[in-house]
């Protein structure tokens, strides 16, 4: 990944950015996020199949933002997250440099948002293949079986909110779960409250999820909570024919409407 290192070093040396957000090898076999501020340390950057985290989550964190202008190593899901964050005016297009990584792991030349949009539009935007099967399997079950499946999974939830922390779209500084007047979601973990939390999370991400699967990956007890948001990704595309994170001008599905939206269940 020499071209990535060279580019990162160059950006830091000529002070076009103050920090490069990328991946580095951790003490174990996993890759971890790296925040490079010193051009001499750009050599620690890596990119290989271990680099799976969605780094876009750091773009809205104050402790990273205060470092200055950022460059970010971005695979397709990260680029789509960035697009979503720009469209929701959480970051400004000219305040970050995107070091795009193509599907085969080579460095892309992403000069500006237009180029990024062009690249995103050419890519496959649906849910990743490995999750499609699981979704189809769940959809084949009867409602009772699905209810049982989710009760079993959600009973494991320990309310650590790692799913929320790992998600680039969950950037609210005051989340509903931290509100106690009224207390929408019980603080303690119980199956019913856990279900309410996961419904709330999925609904808040409806039309905004870009199917990176980071929430499911972050879950310490292995709840496939990414399937909830991914199911809604399918449904949003089905009903409204859009995928999130494809344009800097897009407003999310639930914050807008068309007078002729089709449904069949309202009498």
């Amino acid at each position, binding site marked *: 990944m020499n071209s990535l290192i060279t580019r990162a070093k160059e950006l830091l040396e000529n002070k076009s950015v103050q920090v490069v957000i990328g991946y580095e090898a951790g003490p174990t076999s996993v890759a971890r996020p790296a925040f490079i501020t010193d051009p001499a340390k750009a050599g620690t950057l890596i990119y290989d199949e271990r680099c799976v985290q969605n780094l876009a989550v750091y773009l809205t964190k104050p402790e990273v933002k205060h470092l200055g202008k950022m460059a970010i190593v971005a695979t397709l899901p990260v680029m789509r997250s960035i697009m979503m964050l720009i469209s929701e005016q959480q970051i400004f297009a000219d305040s970050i440099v995107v070091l795009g990584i193509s599907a085969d792991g080579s460095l892309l030349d992403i000069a500006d948002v237009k180029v990024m949009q062009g690249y995103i539009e050419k890519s496959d935007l649906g849910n990743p293949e490995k999750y499609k099967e699981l979704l189809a399997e769940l959809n084949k079950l009867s409602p009772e079986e699905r209810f049982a499946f989710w009760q079993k999974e959600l009973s494991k939830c320990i309310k650590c909110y790692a799913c929320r922390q790992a998600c680039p779209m969950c950037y609210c500084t005051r989340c509903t779960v931290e509100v106690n007047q009224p207390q929408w979601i019980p603080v303690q973990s*119980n199956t019913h409250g856990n279900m309410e939390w996961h419904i709330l999370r999925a609904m808040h991400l409806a039309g905004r999820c870009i199917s990176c699967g980071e929430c499911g990956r972050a879950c310490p007890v292995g709840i496939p909570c990414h399937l909830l948001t991914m199911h*809604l990704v399918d449904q949003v595309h089905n009903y409204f024919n859009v995928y999130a994170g494809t344009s800097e001008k897009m407003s999310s599905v639930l914050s807008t409407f068309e007078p002729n939206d089709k449904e069949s269940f309202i009498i």
Partner: protein
Amino acid sequence: MSDFEPKVVAFVCNWCTYAGADLTGTSRIKYASNVRIIRFPCTGRIDFMLLLKAFANGADGIIVSGCHPNDCHYTSGNFHAKRRWIMFKELMDFMGIDMNRITFSWVSAAEGAKWADVVNTTVTRIRELGPYVSYKELVNKSVEEEVKNE
């Protein structure tokens, strides 16, 4: 379960369905008394969490009703609500929660008879479905889980 009386909670908007329900009364139309009407400023105000809380607090069925499209007092509240319900319904189906227990409808201030009809058909359907046992069990189980953890 012949003595089962369904508890139905109706979330209605102030401008259309609430006035419609009023008309049902002033027109002396009789309808099922199982419904508890909760008035909201607009369908756009009806948070999906309120529906979950209704089930959690023992409702067997829910009615959500507001102004017809293009008739919203606030111009677009019901359009936003419509999109939200489309997503909510799909998510609930995916999680195996019984959407036959929730009726969504548009009832205008002039449709007193339609309101009676919406309530009656919902109550009849819930009566056939019986109490929402699986949700009530889930809530009870969660209370036990909490006691156990303490």
